[in-house]
């Protein structure tokens, strides 16, 4: 089948899955908690206050109606009001998501480049110094919890060395650049605001590196493994029998094949990056969607939790779709 049919099929599947996801989210927020309203208001709220909030949130209605309201709202992006910020949840999401996106993209860039380079070097110079270093680095990287890495980085680069700032996206008195995408690095570049760009860069390096650390390790390992695998294949022997230079064999014949499993891993790491974002944002006080959801959970602000979680699932699904499409583009065998 050609690539467009494939994309269409995957899109339809994605919509179905998202619907299921919405069901799960609803289930979590409305069915599990034994007494949500009291929990939200604290145990001692008077009855009439409880009744009022119930009506306000629509909790007095039968479950089906609640579900219907939720779904119909979700489709248009209306998740209700956040009890914490008093803004429409969608507005909060729009405010906070670009920060997370920027962090994640930066982290992916760092980790993909570093990871692939390390992985390829490791495979090509198997069992030599660079290979051992890279493997040790990888396996340690995958074992360190993100929040701990973040704290250690803070300890070193902020408290002890004072090279990099600790919290937030910009210094307290710096004004953010004009809002185009909401991502400070991009916006400041687009508006030529060099000072803000530098400041934003200084602030993003530490959390992005912290976030990407795990992914770098993961990508390096996969690239190494798949490269080693590819180098054993018969078509590599053919390439050598053709008398091609080693660099050509690796870059032209081996790399594209070995990237195929790596792309899958990058897709998977995107997911782990989103989770890691939650923790990293907490450690570095980064005002992103992860921190928003976390605080929503701690305060039992259901609307923001449901909206935020559904939104993240949506973004994650799109990322997976992109990965699948990339896969199909890279590997002609996948298009059937």
């Amino acid at each position, binding site marked *: 089948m050609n690539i467009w049919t494939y994309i269409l099929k995957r899109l339809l599947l994605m919509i179905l899955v998202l619907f*299921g*996801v919405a069901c*799960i989210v609803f289930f979590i927020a409305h069915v599990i908690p034994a007494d949500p309203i009291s929990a939200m208001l604290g145990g001692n709220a008077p009855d009439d206050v409880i009744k009022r909030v119930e009506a306000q949130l629509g909790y007095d209605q039968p479950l089906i109606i609640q579900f219907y309201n939720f779904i119909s709202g979700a489709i248009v992006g209306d998740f209700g009001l956040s009890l914490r910020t008093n803004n429409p949840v969608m507005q909060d999401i729009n405010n906070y998501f670009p920060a997370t996106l920027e962090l994640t993209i930066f982290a992916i860039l760092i980790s993909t480049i570093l990871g692939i380079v390390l992985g390829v070097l490791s495979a090509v110079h198997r069992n030599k110094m660079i290979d051992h270093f890279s493997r040790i680095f990888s396996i340690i990287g995958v074992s360190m*919890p993100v929040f*701990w890495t973040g704290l250690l980085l*803070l300890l070193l680069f902020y408290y002890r060395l004072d090279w990099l700032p600790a919290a937030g996206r910009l210094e307290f008195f710096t004004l953010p650049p004009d809002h185009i995408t909401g991502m400070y690095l991009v916006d400041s570049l687009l508006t030529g605001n060099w000072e803000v760009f530098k400041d934003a860069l200084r602030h993003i390096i530490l959390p992005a590196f912290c976030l990407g650390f795990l992914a770098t390790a993961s990508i390096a390992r996969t690239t190494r493994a798949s490269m080693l695998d590819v180098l054993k294949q018969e078509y590599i022997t053919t390439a050598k029998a053709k008398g091609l230079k080693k660099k050509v064999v690796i870059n032209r014949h081996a790399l594209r094949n070995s990237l195929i499993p790596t792309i899958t891993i990058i897709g998977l790491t995107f997911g782990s990056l989103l989770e890691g974002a939650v923790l990293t944002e907490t450690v570095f006080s980064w005002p992103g969607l992860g921190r928003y959801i976390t605080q929503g*959970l701690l305060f039992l602000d259901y609307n923001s*939790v449901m909206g935020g979680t559904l939104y993240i699932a949506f973004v*994650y699904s799109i990322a997976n779709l992109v990965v699948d499409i990339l896969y199909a583009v890279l590997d002609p065998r996948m298009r059937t």
Partner: protein
Amino acid sequence: MSETTTKPKTGWFHLMKPYFEDMKHSLYLWRRNKLAIVGSIIIAAFLFIAIFAPLLTPYKPDIQNLSEKLLAPSSQHPFGTDQFGRDILCRILYGSRIAIQIVLIVTIISGFIGISIGVTAGYFGGIIDEILMRITDMFLAFPRLVLAMAFAAMLGPNLTNMIIAISLVNWTPYARISRAEALRVKGQPYIESIRSMGASNFRIMFSHVLPMTISPVLVQLTLRMGTIIITAAGLGFLGLGAQPPSPEWGVMVSDGRSYLIDQWWVSTFPGLAIAIVVLGFNLLGDGIRDMMDPRLRR
């Protein structure tokens, strides 16, 4: 050639036999793999600490001693003390018990869920497979931590609920792998011949399909144990899992955050404990996976 027809052997021992054979072979290979050994040593130490924690330290994890608060690491307190004067090494040792609990229970529950779903989906195929796989996809559409956070928060943050929450999000890879194996085994000719001899579906699934799925799933189970600990620590760190004064390692790291500048040890050592144990599981899992590589086996 013997003329006797053998009745299909029933009974518990014969049901379990394929598992025993597989285990013997695996043990032999395990001994030859260095990485797995290092990992095993770490995990063995971990288990040892968890079991004998009270014997290894003179202190108690929850007794406060404010006159000794925030002391730097010394011979008295190898890892220092926290803001309530509690010995950190002692709390880490006791925290290992919590960690083990979490790992074991989550692995059992999510392994059970995952394998059941996977084997059923793979073996029966058709509409059952489609439905089960869509459900799996739905759970996979979330970043795992976020979903676990949501479950944990809604159920109420405490250790038990955290274990349930993590189990609910951890089963998906097991389902995938056991389904793939079930599909593969299902197509084998010997399955057909057994079925034609009158074996029930359940028997086929349990005796023949399941043993084949165990090896690859076992690798995953071990590989995921590290992830489980990290997820649990993350939840603890965020305040959505075990609650203070529990000596759960993630909670301990979070506790120490405010004192990071001058009393770095409060957060650093618990985190180090997490990293080492997870490293052990990863090494063990890697070693096992290398062993299971079909090219090296048999």
